[in-house]
C-alpha cells in the first residue's frame, strides 16, 4: 500500500439546468478510483454548488496509481428516478507521482459528457502521498519522467541516453463488444475513454519499468499512439528514448547555456565511425538519402524488392515469425537475436529524439523507412500483443538493416505509425540513419575505428557520409564538403530530424510538401493487401520524386523533419510528405530542372516545353532570391562516385549536365506532361503566400496555436491525375486559408505544420493541420543585442536568425531552424535563470478590471514546438495525454459537421488548458493531436469523433520578466524555484 491518493471536491460552476421545473440542479459528485467510490452530499438547487467536501482518501498500490485515472462524476440527484449524470472528469494523476513534476492538482476542470460536451466546471484538489517502497520486484515505475518533447528537455541535462523503449498493450474495443448493442452510446463512449486511460496508464508504467531496468530515469520523445483496429481490438503502443536526466541547478551561471552550448566545447571527442561489421554494402538493401522504399524500386536493381509486399506474405502467416522479410543475407544475424524486451539498446539503436545535444550526432546517412501491410482479421490471438509485437519487430529489424547498409549504427528521429482501413493495416516506421557519439551512451557502439578526425567542423560534420564511398550502398554523387573540403558529402540529404544547431545553412528554409493520391480497386482480404503492397512503392517513389523536384525548384539541397504519411482507404491511397527544405552550405548546389517531351516531333509541343522550362528556371532564380540562397561560387569537383549504370530516377530531373535521354524519362515517371506544370502552379502559390510573410526579424513571442480540419468529398470515378490535383489543391487551399487567417499576425511564420491525412470513408479525404504561428516584432532594437550574443555561439552564422521569419516549418521536426537560434538567443539573453512561482499566465493574465466575478481564467499557451519563443521553461509538470470521444445524434442542431467538430476541438483545447492550469502550468509544449477520427451519418443526423492529444505541461517565464527580475538577489529567486519543485 505505498500510496495515498486524496481528493477534495470544492465547488462547481456553470452547471447545466437538469431540472426543467425549477431551472436548477441538485448536484452531487462521485469520486472513484479503482473500485472505491466516495460521494459528496447533494447540494440542492444551484447551478454553482459549493460542496467543500472532506478529503476523500484512497489507499492504493502505486501500480494502480499509475494505471488508473481518478474519475469524477457529477450527477443530478433525483428523488424519484435514477440520478442523471451531468458529466465526468478524468484526472491523470501520473504527474503527481514524480517528485520533480507537479505536487498538487487544483483548479477548475471542465465537466465533460460525451454527448453534450462540456457542461460546467468543477473545482477539485488532488494530492498524492507516496511511501517509499524499495521492493525491487515492484510492478510500478513511479518517478520515471515522461516527455513528449523530442529533445532533451530544457531544464535538464542528459547524463546518459540509454536508447529505445517500446511497449504495446492490446484490449478488446468496448465499441465492438456484444454489450454495446444494448447499452447507450454514452455508456459505450465512457467505457472506451476509460479503457484507453487505463491502457495508456499501464503502457506508461510498463515503459517506465523498462527504463528503470536500463538504469534510466526518464523517457524523452515519448510517442504514444492508438490503433483502432475494430473487431480485432484496440491497441495502445508507445515508443520513446530512455535517458538519465539530471535537473540543472537553477543557479544562473551554470544554468543558462548547458543545454545548447556549453557541452559542445568538450564534445569534440573522436567520432566513431562504424566499422559496420556485418554490413554487406555490396548487397545494399535499398536505402538512403532517398527514402528507402522508393529507391528499392528502381527497376534495374537486382536487389530491389518490395519490403511491403514481402511483408504481406508475412502477414498472411503471422505466426511463423518469418522475419526474413529482408531477403538479404546479412540480416540473418539480427534475426537470430531473440527478441528480448530488456536489452533494448543493443537490439534497436533507435532514438525518438529529433534534436540532440551538440556533439551527439556525428554523421547522418539519410532517411530509412519500412512499411508493411497486415491483415487484422488474421490475428490468431487478437487479445494478446504478441502478433503486433512481432509485426513491429519485423519493421524495426528492417529499419535497422537499412541503417546498417548506410554504414550507420543508429537511427534517430525515429517514429512509427499505422493506417487502418477495415481489416487492412499499414504499419510504417521511419527515421534517419546516423552515427552518434558514444559519449552519452551506455555501451556505445562497439567500434573504435577513427574514420573521422578529431576536429570535425561542427557546422558540416553531420553531412559527411557515414558510409564507405567505395561501397556506396546506392547511387549518389559525392563531392568534397563545401565547408571543410576534407570529407565527402552527398548531393542531397533527407532526414527526419531537426536541423542540428551547429549546421551551416545558407539562406532561408521553407515548407516542402509532396502530395499524392492513387486510386485502388475495392478488394477484400489478401487481394486487397496485395494490391496495397503493390501500390505502396510507386506511391513512395512518386512522393520522393516530387520532394526532390520541389526541393530543386527552390534551389535547396536538404530536407529536415521529413514525415511521410500514407493513408489507406477503400478505394484509394493517400501519400503526404512534408519537410522543411534548406540549403546546407556543406552540400553542393543543386542542379536545375530540365524537362523534355515525349514527342519531340511536335513543334508547338516543343515550344510549350521550352516555355515551361523557362518558367521553371525563372522560378528557381526567383526562389533563390526569395530564400536568400547565394552560396559562394566554388569550382565544383565531382568526385568519382561509383554511380552505376541506370541512375535513380530521381536524378533524372537534374539536368544541365545530363544527357537528354535521361531527361526524357520524365514522362515515364510522370505519365503526363502536365504533371509537372501542375507542380509549378502549386509552388507558385506557395511562394506568393510566402511573399506575404514580410521580412523582419526578432521573434516577439506572440504565438498562436491552432488546429484546422477539413473533409473533402470527391466525385466518384476520378482518375489518378484528377485525384492528385484535387488533393494537392486541398492542401494548397488549406495553407492559403491559414495565411489569410493569420494575416493579422504578419510578419509571422508558421512552425511545426503537422499535416495528418485520413480517408474516413470512400470518397472522403480528411486533412488536419496543427501548427503554431509566431509573429515577429518589427522592432529591431532588442534583437541586435541578442544577436551579438548569439554570434559567439554559432560562429559564422549570423544569417540564420534573420532567416527565420521565412521559415515555414513542417511537421513534428521542422521547428529546428527557428528553434535553435531562438534557443540560443534565449540562453544568451537571459543570463539569469529565474523561477517565478506565479508565472504570467496565472498572475496577471485575464484580469479584467470590469470582471465582477473576480475569478479569471489563467492563460495557457499551447505549442507543438518544444519551446516557447521569448520565454524560458522553468519546470516540466508532467505529460498530458488525453483521449476524448464526442458523439451527437442531433448533428444539424449543432451546426452540422463543422459546427460539431469546431465545438469539439475547442472543448478539447479547453480541457487540455484546464488540466495544465490545474497542474500549475501555463503552457503545453510539444503538443500534438495524434488522432482525430471523425465519422458521420448525416442520414441519421449522427456523428462521432475521437481525438487524442498529448504534450508536456510546463511553467514558463517570459524573457522580459526574467530581465526585469534579474536584478533581484539571486538567492531569493533560486529559493522560490527550489521550493516549488519540492525536490
Amino acid at each position, binding site marked *: 500500500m505505498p500510496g495515498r491518493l486524496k481528493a477534495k471536491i470544492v465547488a462547481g*460552476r*456553470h452547471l447545466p439546468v437538469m431540472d426543467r421545473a425549477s431551472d436548477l440542479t441538485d448536484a452531487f459528485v462521485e469520486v472513484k478510483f479503482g473500485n472505491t467510490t466516495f460521494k459528496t452530499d447533494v447540494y440542492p438547487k444551484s447551478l454553482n454548488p459549493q460542496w467543500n467536501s472532506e478529503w476523500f482518501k484512497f489507499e492504493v498500490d502505486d501500480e494502480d496509481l499509475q494505471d488508473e485515472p481518478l474519475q469524477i462524476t457529477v450527477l443530478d440527484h433525483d428523488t424519484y428516478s435514477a440520478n442523471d449524470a451531468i458529466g465526468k472528469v478524468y484526472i491523470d494523476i501520473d504527474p503527481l507521482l514524480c517528485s520533480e513534476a507537479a505536487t498538487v492538482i487544483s483548479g*477548475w476542470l*471542465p465537466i465533460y459528457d460525451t454527448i453534450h460536451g*462540456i457542461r460546467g*466546471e468543477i473545482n477539485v484538489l488532488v494530492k498524492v502521498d507516496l511511501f517509499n517502497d524499495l521492493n525491487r520486484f515492484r510492478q510500478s515505475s513511479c518517478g520515471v519522467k515522461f516527455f513528449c518533447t523530442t529533445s532533451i528537455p530544457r531544464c535538464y541535462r542528459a547524463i546518459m541516453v540509454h536508447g529505445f523503449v517500446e511497449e504495446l498493450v492490446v484490449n478488446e474495443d468496448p465499441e465492438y463488444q456484444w454489450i454495446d448493442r444494448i447499452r447507450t452510446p454514452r455508456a459505450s463512449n465512457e467505457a472506451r475513454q476509460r479503457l484507453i486511460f487505463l491502457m495508456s496508464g499501464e503502457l506508461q508504467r510498463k515503459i517506465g519499468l523498462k527504463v528503470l531496468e536500463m538504469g534510466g530515469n526518464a523517457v524523452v520523445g515519448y510517442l504514444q499512439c492508438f490503433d483502432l483496429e475494430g473487431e480485432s481490438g484496440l491497441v495502445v503502443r508507445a515508443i520513446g528514448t530512455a535517458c538519465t536526466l539530471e535537473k540543472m541547478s537553477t543557479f544562473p551561471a551554470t544554468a543558462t547555456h548547458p543545454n545548447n552550448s556549453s557541452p559542445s566545447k568538450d564534445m569534440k571527442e573522436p567520432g566513431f565511425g562504424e566499422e559496420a561489421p556485418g554490413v554487406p554494402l555490396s548487397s545494399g538493401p535499398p536505402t538512403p538519402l532517398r527514402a528507402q522504399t522508393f529507391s528499392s524500386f528502381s527497376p534495374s536493381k537486382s536487389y530491389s524488392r518490395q519490403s511491403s509486399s514481402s511483408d504481406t506474405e508475412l502477414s498472411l502467416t503471422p505466426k511463423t515469425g518469418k522475419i526474413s522479410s529482408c531477403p538479404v543475407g546479412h540480416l540473418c544475424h539480427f534475426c537470430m537475436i531473440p527478441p528480448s524486451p530488456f536489452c533494448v539498446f543493443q537490439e534497436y539503436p533507435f532514438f525518438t529524439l529529433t534534436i540532440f545535444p551538440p556533439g551527439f550526432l556525428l554523421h547522418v546517412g539519410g532517411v530509412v523507412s519500412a512499411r508493411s501491410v497486415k491483415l487484422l482479421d488474421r490475428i490468431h490471438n487478437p487479445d494478446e500483443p504478441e502478433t503486433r509485437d512481432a509485426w513491429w519487430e519485423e519493421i524495426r529489424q528492417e529499419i535497422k538493416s537499412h541503417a546498417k547498409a548506410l554504414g550507420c549504427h543508429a537511427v534517430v528521429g525515429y517514429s512509427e505509425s499505422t493506417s487502418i482501413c477495415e481489416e487492412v493495416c499499414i504499419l510504417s516506421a521511419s527515421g534517419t540513419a546516423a552515427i552518434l557519439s558514444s559519449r552519452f551512451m551506455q555501451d556505445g557502439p562497439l567500434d573504435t575505428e577513427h574514420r573521422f578526425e578529431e576536429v570535425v567542423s561542427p557546422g558540416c560534420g553531420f553531412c559527411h557520409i557515414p558510409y564507405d564511398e567505395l561501397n556506396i550502398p546506392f547511387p549518389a554523387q559525392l563531392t568534397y564538403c563545401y565547408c571543410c573540403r576534407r570529407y565527402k558529402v552527398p548531393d542531397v540529404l533527407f532526414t527526419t530530424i531537426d536541423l542540428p544547431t551547429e549546421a551551416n545553412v545558407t539562406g532561408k528554409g521553407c515548407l516542402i510538401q509532396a502530395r499524392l493520391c492513387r486510386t485502388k480497386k475495392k478488394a477484400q482480404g489478401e487481394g486487397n493487401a496485395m494490391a496495397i503492397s503493390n501500390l505502396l512503392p510507386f506511391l513512395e517513389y512518386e512522393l520522393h520524386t516530387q520532394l526532390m523536384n520541389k526541393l530543386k525548384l527552390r534551389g535547396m539541397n536538404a530536407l529536415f523533419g521529413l514525415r511521410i504519411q500514407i493513408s489507406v482507404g477503400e478505394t484509394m491511397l493517400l501519400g503526404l510528405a512534408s519537410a522543411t527544405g534548406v540549403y546546407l552550405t556543406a552540400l553542393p548546389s543543386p542542379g536545375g530542372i530540365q524537362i523534355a517531351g515525349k514527342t519531340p516531333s511536335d513543334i508547338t509541343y516543343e515550344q510549350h516545353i521550352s516555355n515551361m522550362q523557362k518558367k521553371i528556371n525563372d522560378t528557381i532564380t526567383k526562389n533563390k532570391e526569395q530564400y536568400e540562397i547565394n552560396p559562394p561560387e566554388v569550382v565544383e569537383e565531382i568526385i568519382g562516385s561509383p554511380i552505376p549504370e541506370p541512375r535513380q530516377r530521381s536524378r533524372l530531373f537534374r539536368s544541365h549536365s545530363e544527357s537528354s535521354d535521361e531527361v526524357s524519362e520524365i514522362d515515364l515517371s510522370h505519365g503526363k506532361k502536365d504533371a509537372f506544370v501542375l507542380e509549378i502552379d502549386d509552388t507558385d502559390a506557395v511562394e*506568393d*503566400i510566402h511573399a*506575404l510573410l514580410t521580412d523582419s526579424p526578432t521573434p516577439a513571442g506572440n504565438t*498562436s*496555436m*491552432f*488546429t*484546422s*480540419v*477539413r*473533409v*473533402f*468529398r*470527391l*466525385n466518384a470515378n476520378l482518375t489518378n491525375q484528377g485525384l492528385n490535383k*484535387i488533393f494537392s489543391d486541398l492542401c494548397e*487551399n488549406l495553407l*492559403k*486559408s491559414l*495565411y*489569410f*487567417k*493569420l*494575416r493579422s499576425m504578419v510578419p509571422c511564420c508558421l512552425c511545426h505544420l503537422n499535416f495528418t491525412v485520413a480517408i474516413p470513408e470512400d470518397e472522403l479525404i*480528411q486533412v488536419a493541420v496543427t501548427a503554431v504561428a509566431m509573429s515577429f516584432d518589427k522592432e529591431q532594437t532588442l534583437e541586435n543585442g541578442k544577436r551579438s550574443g548569439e554570434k559567439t555561439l554559432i560562429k559564422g552564422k549570423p544569417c540564420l536568425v534573420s532567416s527565420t521569419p521565412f521559415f515555414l516549418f513542417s511537421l513534428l521536426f521542422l521547428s529546428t531552424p527557428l528553434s535553435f537560434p531562438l534557443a540560443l538567443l534565449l540562453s544568451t539573453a537571459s543570463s539569469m535563470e529565474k523561477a517565478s512561482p506565479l508565472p504570467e499566465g496565472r498572475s496577471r*493574465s*485575464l*484580469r*479584467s478590471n*470590469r*470582471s*465582477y*466575478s473576480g*475569478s*479569471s*481564467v489563467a*492563460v*495557457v499557451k*499551447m505549442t507543438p514546438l518544444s519551446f516557447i519563443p521569448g520565454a524560458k521553461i522553468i519546470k516540466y509538470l508532467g505529460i498530458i495525454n488525453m483521449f476524448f470521444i464526442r458523439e451527437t445524434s442531433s448533428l444539424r442542431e449543432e*451546426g452540422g*459537421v*463543422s*459546427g460539431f*467538430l*469546431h*465545438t469539439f*476541438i*475547442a*472543448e478539447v*483545447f*479547453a*480541457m487540455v*488548458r484546464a488540466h495544465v492550469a490545474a497542474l500549475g502550468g501555463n503552457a503545453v509544449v510539444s503538443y500534438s493531436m495524434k488522432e482525430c477520427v*471523425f465519422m458521420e451519418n448525416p442520414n441519421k443526423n449522427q456523428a462521432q469523433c475521437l481525438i487524442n492529444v498529448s504534450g508536456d505541461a510546463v511553467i514558463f517565464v517570459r524573457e522580459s520578466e526574467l530581465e526585469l527580475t534579474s536584478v533581484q538577489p539571486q538567492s531569493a529567486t533560486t529559493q522560490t524555484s527550489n521550493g516549488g519543485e519540492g525536490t
Partner: protein
Amino acid sequence: MSMELDVFVGNTTVLDQDVYQLWLDGHTVSDAVRIRMEAGALQECEANAEVLHSDTTDQFRTFQMCERLLQSPSKVANQLLFQIPPHRQTMLIERYYEFDSVFAREVLGKKLSKGTKKDLDDISSKTGIALKSCRRQFDNFKRVFKVVEELKGPLVENIQRHFLLSDVLARDYAAIVFFANSRFEAGKRKLQYLSFQDFAFCAGQLISYWTVGAVDNMMEDLDVDLEKDFLHDLKDLKVLVNDKDMLDQHKSLVCAQLRGKIKVFSEMEANFKNLSRALVNIASKLTHTKDFRDLFIDLVEKLIEPCRSDKWTIGDLRLFLKHYSSSVHMLEAFRHQVIWDRYMSVIKSCILKMYHD
C-alpha cells in the same frame, strides 16, 4: 466534389473585428463575403473567394458559439471554452451590446414584450437594419431590462457590473430601461424629430434628479421609478400660476431680466403666462400615469412648438428658462423653492436638448 467540413480552431480564439461587425449587422455568410470582397479583402494576402468564404463561415460559427456566453457577459471571463485575451473579451461584449440608435429610437418607450417583437419586422424594413440584427438588439434590451429590473441600487452601475459595458453604453442602456419601465410616449409623430440621443439625455436627467435612487441609493426597488413624494410635491407648484399676484410678479421679474437681451422679448412677454402655465401644469400632473407618460409630448406641444413658431433661438430659450426658474427665488410668498429647482433644472435641460429641428 465539395468541402464537407472545414473548421479552424485556435488555442487563442481567432477573431476578426470587421467580420464580427458583419455578423452583428445580421448579414448572411454570402453577403458578408461579398461585402468583404468589395472592401478589398482579396487584395490582402492574395486570397481567393473560396478562402474568404471559408474564413467567413468559420468566424461566423465562432461568433455563434460565443453568443451564448455574450448573453451573460460575466461568464465570458471565467469560461474555459474560448481563450480570449481580456481586451478582446471587452471588445466582443461591448460590440455585442452596441445598438443602432435608429433602432433604439423605434423601440423607445415600447413594452419590451413578445408582442413588440413582431413589430421588429416592420422596424427592420423601416430602418433598413437586418432583422437578425434587430432581434439581437431587441433581445439585448430585454435581457438587460430583465436583469436590472430586480436589482437594487443605481441603474447605470448595475448595468455596468452585470454586463461589463463601458460607461457610455451603460448609460444608454439605462435610458432604454428607464423608458421601457416608465413607458414614456415617444412614438408620436410630433416626437419623431427627436433622436435617441435626445431621449437618452433626458432619461439621464430624469434618472439623476427625479428618481428614488437620486436621493437614496440603497432603496429596495428598481431605482428608476420616480420618487412618488417628489411628484406629489410638484402639485404645490400650482400656486405659481393660480395665484395671480405671484404670476404677475414672476412675469415682471423675468421681463426685467430679459429686456433687451432676447430678440423675441415681445413674444415672450405676450406668451409668458401660457408658457408658465404649461410648465407648471406639466409638473402638477406628473402623478397621473397617463400625463406622466406624455411628458415629452407635452413639452413639445406646450412649450417647444409655441416657441418655435415664434422663432425663438436656442439662446433665447436658454436665457428665458434660466431667468424663469431663478426669478422664482425672489418671490417671497413662494415656499417650494427646493422642489421648484429640482423640477426646473431637469425640465430646463430636457427642453434645451429637445429644442431643435
